[in-house]
């Protein structure tokens, strides 16, 4: 689905329309449905209070310096309920955000970074193309977090994964087992997780993913990862005598 400019107006209040309507293949009703999903999130109303258009958020934003990205436009589109522009932003802008929350400098109390968090979740939940593209190459991270309860494991330090970090990565990788055994805290001797986690803790984590629907969030986005994680979790829960509803 590529953005296509067309002079045909369907939603004349939209800033996206004024700039040239985008994503004409997606019906307005679908864009409205996605926006309603964003707006129904409890956090949304904590994150948006209107916009002075002062641009303080843009001045503070690291992504605005390097990308065609503006937290001000995010807040404005949401405040105006401009479903055309919000949809366009979900496809083109939201994954540029650094989630540093420098935009919380907003004198109006807005949280554009928070609005983006919600927009991203809706994009993931609905399997939007932007989410699939943005998270390509990210599968291993999702797998690590959900299956181990830690994320940045020592064995991720591989020279071919981080060539721009220089020779220190290869050195760590070659000595990994030895250098982990040289760490004084007993919990730190593992190489596949950040620290040693008990089985009971992992069981509780898996139950959380199931009971809050977090595991199902990726079913649209990456069905094979979803199946793999489901299997890993069910195996452990079975072993430990837990039955899922």
């Amino acid at each position, binding site marked *: 689905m590529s953005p296509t400019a067309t002079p045909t107006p369907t939603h004349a209040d939209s800033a996206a329309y004024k700039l040239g309507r985008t994503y004409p293949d997606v019906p307005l009703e679908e864009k409205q449905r996605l926006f309603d999903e964003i707006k129904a999130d409890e956090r949304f109303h904590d994150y948006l209070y209107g916009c002075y258009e002062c641009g303080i958020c843009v001045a503070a934003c690291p992504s605005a310096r390097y990308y065609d990205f503006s937290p001000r436009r995010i807040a404005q589109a949401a405040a105006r309920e401009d479903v055309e522009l919000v949809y366009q932003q979900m496809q083109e802008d939201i994954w540029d955000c650094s989630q540093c929350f*420098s935009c919380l400098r907003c004198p109006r109390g807005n949280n554009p970074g928070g609005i983006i968090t919600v927009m991203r979740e809706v994009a993931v939940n609905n399997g939007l193309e932007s989410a699939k593209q943005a998270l390509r190459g990210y599968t291993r991270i999702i797998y690590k*977090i*959900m299956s181990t309860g830690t994320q940045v494991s020592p064995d991720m330090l591989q020279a071919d994964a981080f060539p721009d970090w220089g020779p220190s990565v290869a050195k760590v990788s070659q000595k990994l087992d030895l250098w982990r055994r040289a760490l004084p805290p007993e*919990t730190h*001797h593992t190489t596949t997780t950040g620290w040693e986690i008990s089985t009971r803790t992992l069981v509780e*984590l898996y139950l959380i993913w199931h009971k809050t629907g977090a595991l199902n969030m990726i079913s649209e986005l990456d069905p094979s990862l979803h199946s793999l994680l489901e299997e890993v979790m069910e195996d452990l829960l079975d072993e430990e005598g837990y039955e899922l509803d």
Partner: protein
Amino acid sequence: MTIPVEKVSGPRRKNKAEFEWTPEHIPEDFHERLFELEEKGELVVQRVDTEHIEVPVKYGRSKKVPIGHTWHHKSCGQCGHIPGYSTSIFWVNRKLGIEYEDPRDQTSCTAWNYYASATSNAAAQAAVAVRNFAAAYETGRFPIIHCGTSFGHYKEVRHELLAHDQLREQVRRVMDALGKPLVLPEEMVHYSEWFYAMRHEIAKHQVRDFSNIAVTVHPACHYYKLVEGDAIYDPEVYGGQRTAIVSEVAQALGAEVRDYSTWFDCCGFGFRHILVTRDFTRSFATQRKIKRMKEEADPDVTLTHDTGCVTTLDKSQFAAKAQDPSFATIPVMSEAQFAALAMGAHPYLVCQLHWHAADYRPLLEKMGIDHEKAWAEFEEATARLERGEQQYLTWEDADV
């Protein structure tokens, strides 16, 4: 120790030291709602009921930081990629004779799946946080959080749980299924707040002179931008106009804190960016942070207090130097490692500096540390592991 407010006011601006919040404009203190829900029996509040130090936060309020009897909520990035970070935190506790717990009943905050990929949701994140708080509560120890993102995220989670009845109910049902209470701690405490609180005690145990060491400080975004009221602001440091975190520890150790213009900028980490759009991270970290620090302050080291910031600022420098040999690098570490070095910690057996990328050896020399001898000691210790004389090094091995 004081850093005058003129440091932030600039040559043509009036300083804002006189600025004070009027009572009606001060945001509500979250404790009111927290204790109200506790009284209604909706949740359990884990109190700071052991020896503690009160530290100043925004709006003239204070926060209780427990000294000991703590439950260390570790950081996946620190333990995984910069293990000298957590090792130094533990070593300083041990050196001061303070007991603590390094639990196995702890998951990470899993906020990578929240801020990076959005493959989680508010209920899951709150349940993960509360499960960890309940695990700490079961031990009777107070949680102290190593990661800036975990700290910031948990502050957000606390707000959401206090504000939204439906979310609270959903998380309560999950916790019921786990057989755990819905617990929130009275205070959210980041490890760097503990270092701030203990800075004078740490300075009493200092064995290395840092009076010739100049530092720059990068305050971590998720520490003080998320739920801003709950971060340390000290009237004695920049007139309370900036967070005093890290800067005040460096000052207490006798180092010179130097200012630079892009102190408010993030490090460039960006979560998904450091993994999948790495050009952004590298460029931002080196051009907006390291280069500016070097040009404006020329520090011997830059100190920060979060996992992602240490990683990003440290590792990104290699590519900048490879592209431009005249690019001047700066060693990067946490203030925990810096404080440990001040107290005489071994640079490799404790601070694990060999996991870092930017050249730290000139800094060690300036600190009076013979890094060649120290490396030989580390190699000798690991040789014992290779020969099978020991399976692991211990805390006793770290104090050579």
